[in-house]
C-alpha cells in the first residue's frame, strides 16, 4: 500500500487531467522516489489509480530507462553505449567500471551501493565517453575520473551511515 499522503497527492493530480494515463510516468516516478523501484504491488496500485491494467503500465515501465522494476543500488550508474561513446572508448570504460565495482552490467554491488546499467545515448556525445550517476552526467571519462566519482559516492554514503 502506498502511503496515504502520496496516494492522496497523486489522486488529486489525476483528478485534474482529462486522460489519467497521461500522468502515468509522473505517477511511476513518484512511487519510485518513495520506494526506490516499482514493485509488482506498487505497479498494480498505480495502474488502478490511472485506470490502466498492470500490463499497460508495465509496458511503459519496462520501456523507459529510468523506471526500475527491480530494487537498485543507492547509486545507479548508466554507462552510455551509443555509437559516439563506443567510438571514443565505451568498452574500456565499461570494463573498468565492472572490474572496480566487481559486478557485471545489470547487477548491483553486494553492499547495495551501486547498480550498473547500459544506456543508449544521453546526448553527451561531444564529451564522450560518458555516464550518468543518479541522472548526473559525467563526461570524458578516464579510470582516474571514474575512481574519483566512485570514491566520492562511497564517502558520501559512509558519512550518511555514520550519521544514523
Amino acid at each position, binding site marked *: 500500500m502506498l502511503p496515504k499522503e502520496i496516494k492522496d497527492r497523486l489522486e488529486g493530480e489525476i483528478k485534474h487531467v482529462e486522460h489519467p494515463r497521461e500522468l502515468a510516468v509522473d505517477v511511476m516516478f513518484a512511487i519510485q522516489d518513495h520506494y526506490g523501484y516499482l514493485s*509488482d504491488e506498487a*505497479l498494480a496500485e498505480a495502474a488502478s489509480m490511472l485506470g*490502466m*491494467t*498492470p*500490463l*499497460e503500465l*508495465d*509496458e511503459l515501465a*519496462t*520501456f*523507459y530507462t529510468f523506471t526500475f522494476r527491480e530494487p537498485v543500488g543507492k547509486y545507479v550508474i548508466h554507462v552510455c553505449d551509443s555509437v559516439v561513446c563506443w567510438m571514443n572508448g565505451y568498452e574500456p570504460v565499461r570494463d573498468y567500471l565492472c572490474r572496480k565495482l566487481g559486478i557485471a552490467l545489470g547487477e548491483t554491488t553486494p553492499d547495495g551501493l551501486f547498480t550498473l546499467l547500459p544506456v*543508449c545515448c544521453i546526448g553527451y556525445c561531444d564529451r564522450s565517453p560518458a555516464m550518468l550517476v543518479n541522472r548526473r552526467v559525467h563526461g570524458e571519462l578516464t579510470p582516474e575520473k571514474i575512481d574519483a566519482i566512485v570514491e566520492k559516492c562511497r564517502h558520501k554514503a559512509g558519512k550518511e551511515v555514520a550519521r544514523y
Partner: protein
Amino acid sequence: MPKLIIDDREIEVATGTKVIEAAAQLGISIPRFCYHPALGSVGACRVCAVKVLEGPAKGIQMSCMLEAVDGMQVSTADREAVEFRRYVIEWLMMNHPHDCPVCDEGGHCLLQDMTVSGGHGLRRFPGKKRTYPDQDLGPLVQHEMNRCIHCYRCARFYQQFCGYRDLGVLGIGNRTYFGRTAGGRLESPFSGNLSDICPTGVFTDKPSRFIGRRWDYQRTPTVCIHCSLGCHAVTSVRYRQVARQEARMSAAVNGWFLCDRGRYGFFYASRADRPRQAAIKGETAGMEEALAHARSRLEALAPAAVAVIGSPRSSTEVLALTERAARLRGWRGPAFFADVGAALKVKAAVSRLEAGLAVSLGEIDQADFILIVGADPINEAPMLALALRQAAQKGAGVWVVDPRPVSLPFEFAHIPTAPKALGAVLGRLLRKSIEPAGLDGPAARFHASLPGDPASGPELPARAAELLAASRRPIIVCGTGIVAAEWVELAADAALLLRAAQKKAGLFYVLAEANAFAAGLLTQLDSTTDRVLKAAAEGDIQALVLVENDPFATFPDRRLLEQALARIELLIVLDYLDTPASRRAHVFLPTQTLYESGGIFINQEGRVQYSAAAFAGGTPVRETGGRDHPPRVYGSGLPGAAPQPAGQLVARLAGEEIPIDIRAQREYFSEQASRLAGLPDTERLPPDGLRLALRNISAERFKSMLPPVPAAESDDIEIILTERTFGTEELSTYSACLETLEDETFAGVSRQDAEALGIRDGDRIAIRTENGAVELAARVCDNMAAGAMMIPRLRRLPWQTLGKSIRRRDIRKA
C-alpha cells in the same frame, strides 16, 4: 480504380488497395510478417519490400504501406528488392533458436517459408543469441519467446483487434518481450487465435502440442457448432483423433478468427469415455441386436405412447429424419425445444428474417449504430462481440438493453432493463428517433402505436435517440435467450420501421444453439420437451426416444424430468456423448459426431452451411494402442466404428431402411419444410454457405403489439438463466482444457435487491426451493436490473431445481 503493373502484369484494383494486396490478387505472394489483412499495415518487419520502377516514390518501398496508384510499375523480383528482403530475413533470424524439430509450428511456419524463399541458409553472426524466460499462459496457448521475431502481430491482435489488456509488449529494443506482467491464464476468450496469427512458434496450440505436423493431419473444412453463428473452421485429425481446430477465413461469417469455445470445443469427439458400443440395459450389445430389440419393443407399444425428443445441436439431416420417423410412425414429437416459449421465439426469428433485413456477422462492422436487445454477446456468441468491437472502433455507438451485467471488450452504453420492459424501451427509442412524417401505411400506424409517454416507463437516454436518428446503417441485434417472442417480433418491426425511415437498417438474431434455425423450421409448437415429459409423468407415454439430447444438461425442470423417467417403461437414447441420460437408457445406440458424418447446419441468419466429414470414425489409435503401437491384429473394419449417423438410426427404429449415402437424405428436407426445398448438393454450396431464400411476407410486418409494462404483480425475484462463454454450451463442457476457464458458480443480484436483502458481494446465500435448498456465492452487480437474479447454467450449479422465480423471503445469507 487505379491500374498498375506488378511484375509485368497489369491489374486494376479498388482505390485504397495496398500493393501487397494488389499483388495477391494476381496470385503473387509477397513475403510478410507484420502485415495481416485483419490487422492492417504497420510497416514494421520490412520483409515485404518491393522496388517501385514507375510511380510517386521510386526505389525500395514497403508494399504493405504503399497504396496502389494509377500507372504504377512495381517489381517484386528486382535484384535490389530480393537482396533487401534477404538481409531482412538474415537479421530476423539472428536470435532465432533454430529449434524447428521440436517446435509445433514447424511445417506451417511463415518464418521457415520466408527464410527458405529469402535464400538465407548460412549463419554469419557469431555472437550470443538473446534469450527470454517463458510464461505459463493457461491451458490453451504455449509460450516460447526465444522464437520471436518482433512482428507485433500478437499484441496488435490481442489489444487493438480484440480489446483485451493483459498481454502486450514489454521492454525495448533487443529486450522487447511479448507476454504478460506475470504468468497466468490469458483473459481473452479469443486467445487461441494467437497460435494462428503468430508467424513463428512463439504462441502455439497447447492442447495439440506434439501430436502432429501439418502434413500428418487429415485437414477438413468444417463449421463450428458451439453457438448459433456457424463460424468456419479447419479440423485436423490424426490417427482417428480429432486433435486441433483452426480458424478458416470467411468474409461473410467469422472473418479470420474463432473464439476459444469454438476452437477447443471438439474434444467430445475423441474422449476415452465416449460410448462407442450399443447397449441393452447397460450390457454391451451389437448394433443390429440393439436396434432389433428397440424396434420390437417400440412396435409392441401404441404409437401415441412413444415420444421423440431431439435437439438443436443435431445436423439438419438428423432433425429432418427424426421428424420424418415420428410422422411416419405416428409417434409424438419430435420436440426440439424445452417449452412453447422457447419454440415460439425461434419460430418468430425464423419467420421474421427477411431477405432485405438480415445481416451477416461479416456485415456487422459496417454499422454506425447498434442496438442490442436481450443478448449477451460475449457469453452467448463470442465472435459477435468481436464483430461489434470492429464496428465500435469505426465509430458506431453500441447500446445494450438487457437485465444482465453485460460486459464487452469496448466502450458501450448499457441500460439495465427488466426482461418485461425490454420492448417498451425499444418502442420508446423508435418513437423518439423517427419522424412520423414520411412514413405511410402500416409503418405509420406502427409508429403511432409505439409508446410516446416518457413517464410511463424506462427509457434510453436522449443521446441514443439522437444517434439513431442520425444513423444511416443501424443494426438491431436481438437475443432469443431471455427475451419474449413478442420482442423478437418487435425487433423485426423496429428494423422495418428504420427501413421505412430511409435507413439501411439490418436485423441480427442470436439463437440458442448451433442448429436452432433448422429446428425452428421443423418444430411443431404442440410438441415441446416439457409437454412430452408431462405426458410421460402422467403415464400417457411409455417410451421416450432421445435423439442427441441430454435433458439433464438442457432441460430446466429437473423434477419433472425425474418424474417422467421414473414412470416410462422404455428409454432409448441415441447419442455420441456419455451423458446421464445415455447411462440410464434401456437401449443405447451410439451415433456419429459431425466430424464423422458431416452435416448441414443453418446459422442464426439462415445461412445453410455444410460441415464435411473429417474422418471415417473409430477409436483413436492413441487408445487402441494404449499410447503405444496399436495392436497387431488383422481384420477388416475399424475398431470403435460402430456409431452410425443418428438420422439413419432413428429412421431404422421407425422401420425404414435408409440409403447409406447421406446426400440422398436431403430429398427428405423438402417434405418437412418448404424453405429447405431445392438446396443444392453439398458440393455445390458456395464456400461461404448459402443464405436461405428468406420470404418477404408483408402480412407479418408491423403486427407486433407492444403490451404495456405490467406493474410488478408480485415482489418475487425472477430467475434469469444465462449462458457463459465457457461451461454452459453442452458440447464444449466435454473439453478438459476448457474446464479451468469456467466461471465459479454464482448468483448475480442487483445492488438494489442486495441491499434490500441484506446481502453483500461474495456472501454465501441459501435459496429455498420446492426441491430443497441451494447454496451459492452472491455476485452483487451495479449494472443489473432489479427484481431479477442471474443464474449461469453451469454444470456444478443445480440450476434445474430453481424454477422461474423465487420469493424474497426464501433468499437469505447462508
